[in-house]
């Protein structure tokens, strides 16, 4: 298994991606919004799942930055805040024309899970009186006229568990009709499908969907295809292919042993 994962990474093999319907739905949700729309990005994951979710989180950041959307970052997980910092670093290094406080802002982590969501659907300042730098929201151009998250045009949630997409659907998307898209782990993705398309506009499930989303961005904005950092999910599909193929081989071998043993037992 170690070799199955290591060799493709060292070889740097990248496979072409066919954009699936779900990835297209998520892409269109962000792309079809008018430039400068308000987008709330909630990073509800930690380093344990960053291998699967960080590439799609970064892809969301790049897509929103290209479109010039106003980005509002927050986290419901304590270790989600540093994940937001990685996206902020991406904006600062790749999109230096964007200004903090004008084009994007970061709210700090708040404990409470769904309680936080319930509060910010009514009163943003009730939960976040200031941003992560200690500046009152009334003094920040991007948040000056935002009363609550019902003023958002889209919620993008990157989720690894609880609290996560389910809570955003239950307490924000469904009661207030705020359009929401989600990026989640492969394990969580099957649970999100019942919410599509009424409560969730689309779901990116696992690193495969992240690679498809990156492919969709590359097709629409060819200049980003030259950025190696923007191809991270595609790069991780190489190890996934080899690892999955190895598992298929192991399953076949296991079943062959099982049937031979059973035949010998019967004979």
């Amino acid at each position, binding site marked *: 298994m170690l070799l199955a994962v290591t060799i493709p990474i060292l070889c740097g093999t990248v496979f072409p991606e066919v954009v699936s319907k779900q990835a297209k739905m998520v892409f269109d949700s962000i792309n079809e919004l008018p430039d400068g729309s308000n987008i709330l990005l909630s990073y509800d994951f930690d380093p344990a799942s960053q291998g699967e979710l960080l590439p799609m989180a970064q892809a969301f950041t790049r897509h929103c930055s290209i479109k010039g959307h106003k980005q509002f970052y927050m986290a419901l997980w304590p270790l989600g805040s540093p994940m937001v910092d990685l996206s902020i670093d991406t904006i600062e290094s790749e999109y230096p024309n964007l200004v903090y406080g004008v084009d994007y802002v970061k709210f700090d982590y708040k404990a409470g899970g769904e309680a936080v969501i319930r*509060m910010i659907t009514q009163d943003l300042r009730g939960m976040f009186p200031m941003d992560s730098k200690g500046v009152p929201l009334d003094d920040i151009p991007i948040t000056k006229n935002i009363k609550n998250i019902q003023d958002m045009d889209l919620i993008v949630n990157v989720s690894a568990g609880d609290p996560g997409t389910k809570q955003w659907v239950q307490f924000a998307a469904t009661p207030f009709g705020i359009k929401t898209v989600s990026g989640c782990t492969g394990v969580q993705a099957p649970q999100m499908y019942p919410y599509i398309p009424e409560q969730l506009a689309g779901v990116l499930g696992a690193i495969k969907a992240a690679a498809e989303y990156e492919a969709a961005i590359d097709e629409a904005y060819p200049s980003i295809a030259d950025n190696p950092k923007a191809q991270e999910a595609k790069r991780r599909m190489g190890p996934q*292919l080899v690892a999955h193929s190895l598992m298929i081989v192991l399953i076949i071998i296991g079943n062959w042993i099982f049937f031979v043993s059973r035949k010998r037992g019967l004979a």
Partner: protein
Amino acid sequence: MKRTVPLIIAIVAGFVLLIANFIPFAESWGLTAQEWFNILAVGAMILGGGNLLKLHLMKVSGQRKGWGYSVVTIVCFTATLIIGMFKMGVNPNPLTPDYAWSGYYLESGSGLWWIYQHMVVPLTSMMFAMLAFYVATAAFRAFRAKNTEATLLLITAGIVLLGRTYAGVWLFEGWLPESMQWLRFDNLTVWIMEIPNTGGTRAITIGIALGVVATSLRILLGVDRSYLGQD
């Protein structure tokens, strides 16, 4: 009294949140209750931390089996708490330079940031990455076509495993007719996720929700008191 007061608090809080959800006039009650929840969560966290310390200190003082790990736990817990709480290595916020503790607690280069980058990230990533090896051994040992249901699971797992990679497209490239493209593993995976999976998950979710309603009603009416613990 020991059980009655918590019972009354639980029932009142439950009904307040229920009413706040359905009656617009009472919506602010729910928000107030949510704020109280956050404050109580802080108290619970302090209690939890104190209990953790107490248990591990008892283990160390009693020299019970594995007490060495308890020493590691206590040292790491205390160090992280002190470094984080006193914001060691954090510069004051430029907006309020006179206040030493006004900086961002995870400022790049600070003590807590160092612990996060060099301990938390590699350790948690390692724990999750090990799952891949466990899944590989489990696939070898457990995915056996013993009966019809196991065979169906096996076939579905094989289709999804390959459908989630480039192999799902490559295996059928060049020879599958256009009218049969639905047989491509990536398309079959999409169908599995959208139709059988969604139907089954929807049924399970509704069942769980009904169960939650029933259990919540029992707790709200004071019939179920298991959360109070034993006498």
